[in-house]
């Protein structure tokens, strides 16, 4: 199989380039993209990429695989679109490249930080947990599972054009996760910090985020809920 990889080493080159490798795949096995990368690394140890848990939990190996963002460790070759027998690996779009497939996620984390992704509750902490009904707890399903791999935000044109102003799908999913939490008391403050033309409203609903989320989450729906809350809160 032909594997084409985005290469950039700031110590050697000023511009990135694509480098091609011919990889022999074992017969009768549907390898994950991360396995193929390991085979490439055997040929050329200088290829840099992030990976850790290799089972879609840590969110380290998000990358652009044949034009679609995904986690290399849980994307089997059989599920990769595009031309057969060719694999094109590029770093997540829109973020500065540190080296090869490793991107600087600082701006992505800044947007995450902006939504205050933690429980805010003014009431004094009770002796036991802050309790929640099973119904209220169920409202957090489909929100809390995000692993911050950035596949969604870096697949979103609105985030490409304004990564410093538009919170992006990953950040907004978490914003809603705390807006929806019955134990959180900062709803009003959270909402008023989102009512500018960029933070939430730059979403055009193209749903590129939903199309690539490796955990099957739906940031577009969360953004819709935030908008509804902003509307009912009034301007």
């Amino acid at each position, binding site marked *: 199989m032909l594997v084409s990889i985005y290469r950039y080493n700031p110590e050697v080159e000023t511009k990135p380039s694509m480098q091609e490798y011919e990889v022999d795949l074992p017969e009768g096995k549907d390898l994950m993209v991360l396995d193929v990368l390991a085979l490439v690394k055997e040929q050329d140890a200088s290829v840099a990429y992030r990976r850790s848990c290799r089972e879609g939990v840590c969110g380290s190996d998000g990358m652009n695989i044949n034009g679609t963002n995904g986690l290399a460790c849980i994307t089997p070759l059989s599920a990769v679109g595009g031309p057969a027998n060719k694999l094109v690996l590029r770093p997540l779009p829109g973020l500065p490249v540190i080296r090869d497939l490793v991107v600087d996620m600082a701006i992505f984390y800044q947007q995450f930080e902006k939504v205050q992704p933690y429980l805010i509750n003014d009431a004094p902490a009770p002796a036991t947990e802050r309790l929640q009904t099973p119904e209220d707890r169920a409202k957090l399903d489909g929100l809390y599972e995000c692993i911050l791999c950035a596949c969604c935000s870096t697949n979103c*044109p*609105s985030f490409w*054009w*304004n990564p*410093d102003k538009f919170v992006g799908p990953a950040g907004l999913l978490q914003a809603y996760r705390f807006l929806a939490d019955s134990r959180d008391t900062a709803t009003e403050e959270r909402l008023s910090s*989102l*009512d*500018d*033309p*960029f*933070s*939430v*409203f*730059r979403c055009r609903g193209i749903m590129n985020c939903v199309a690539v989320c490796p955990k099957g989450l739906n940031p577009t729906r969360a953004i819709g809920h935030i*908008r509804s809350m*902003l*509307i009912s809160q009034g*301007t």
Partner: protein
Amino acid sequence: MGSDMVTNATNFSRSGLSDWIIQRFSAVILAAYTLFILAVLVSMPELNYESWREVFSKNSVRLFSVISLLALCGHTWVGMWTVGTDYLTDRQLGGKGTFIRLIYQSFCVLLIAVYLLWGIQIFWGS
């Protein structure tokens, strides 16, 4: 930062929610007007000057036309502002982005003003 100030200064409403509501509200009016005009065009097989003029000389149609014109102004401004702040920025175009966007936004405001005055003249002037 300078570009943020320009972004804020040229966003008349300063609220994403009100922009969003303007966009949706005006869209519904414009959709209704478009369908109305199309219905007029299709339902009049013998379209001539007299009948065409008669449609637009009714006060109800005049009012509908001017309201739609106002909706058009709001709708195009929010839309064009959004397009400009996506592509015509320092981030996309380097240091000149803010300047280019100001020129672009001036052009948009000018054209919207022309459409508004021209449209009022067409619908109400004659």
